Every structure is written in structure tokens, then in C-alpha cells.
């Protein structure tokens, strides 16, 4: 059961990776990277249950946080031109 779910995650991960590599605009890639992060969060949780020690879900929480922060940082750089306060 867990293995089937993991295989589904793998298939959709491959499809999303195709979109990341082929994507035309930057927004496509950012969207696909965000979806890949979500898939990886699910994969970590499922792998914990599959291997019999589901105590390591903290890593999945950190992943969700890092994924959100990375996406927002890329989008901010894309909209304002810098991450910090100095702008030429």
C-alpha cells in the first residue's frame, strides 16, 4: 500500500521534472518546483511509514517551510530586482 503510493509519487515527480526542464517561462518552473517540493514532503512522510519508523516527520515539516521560503524568495527577486534593501 505504501509502496504503491510511493510509486505514484515517483511517477508524478518525473512528470513535474519534465515540466521543470522544458518549461518556457520562469513562472512555469517556479510553479513546478513548488509542486515538486510538495511531492517530496509527501514522499518523506510515506517513506517513514513504509520503513516502519514514522517518527521522523519533523524533516517533512522543515521541508514544507524551506519550500515556501525558497519560492517566495525567487518571486521577490523576480518582482523587485533584489532581496535586500539596497537598490541601485
Amino acid at each position, binding site marked *: *500500500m505504501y509502496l*504503491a*503510493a510511493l510509486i*505514484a*509519487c515517483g*511517477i*508524478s*515527480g518525473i*512528470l*513535474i521534472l*519534465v*515540466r521543470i526542464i522544458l518549461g518556457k*517561462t520562469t*513562472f*512555469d518552473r*517556479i*510553479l*513546478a518546483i*513548488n*509542486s515538486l517540493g*510538495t*511531492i517530496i*514532503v*509527501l514522499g518523506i*512522510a*510515506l517513506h517513514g*511509514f513504509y520503513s516502519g519508523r*514514522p*517518527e521522523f*516527520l*519533523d524533516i*517533512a*515539516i522543515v521541508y*514544507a*517551510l524551506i519550500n*515556501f521560503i525558497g*519560492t*517566495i524568495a525567487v*518571486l521577490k527577486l*523576480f*518582482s523587485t530586482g533584489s532581496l535586500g534593501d539596497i537598490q541601485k
Partner: protein
Amino acid sequence: MELVKDIITGVFFFIGSMSIIIGACGLIKLPDVFSRIHAAGMIDTGGTAFFLLGMIVQSGWSLITVKLVLIGVFIFFTSPVTSHVTANLAREKKLTPVGKKIGKVL
């Protein structure tokens, strides 16, 4: 009792797997950014919700359930924010949707 739990988890996992695969196919197949956001939203809502529900049914009342609920709540709040910011920026950068010509609506 275990059998009932397993069956419920299997049904949830099936629905979740279908929604993430359909979402990933949509990310490839749909024509432009504004329609691909729907597919990404399908992964973020349908996939995570059903997978996490299935795992909650398996784990019962424990600390693991709390962590799973935390993941669910976090993705539930951050996914719409990301989609909104992406769509907003794509509109600011003058990307126009494929298909019908948009008139004075936007």
C-alpha cells in the same frame, strides 16, 4: 479493526495518488501559466489532504498525528499564497493567457 483501517487508508491513498498524477499530467499538458496553476493547486490540495488523512487513520492518536496535522495546516495556508503571488507577478509581467482574447475584464 485493522482490516477496516487498511481499507480506509487504501481508498484515501488511491484518491490521493490519482489526484497527484492528474495534477502532474495537467502541469505538462495545459498551455500556459494561468491554467497550470490549477494543476499545481490540485497537487497541493487534493494530494496532500488525502495522503495525510490516510496516514492519520493509520497512526491513530499519537504525536505522529499532531505532526501530520501540522504539515497539513502549513501546506493548506502556504499553497494559496504561492499560487496567488505567481499569478499576480505573471499578470504584472504582461503574460497573456492563451485562448480567448480578454477584453476589459482584467
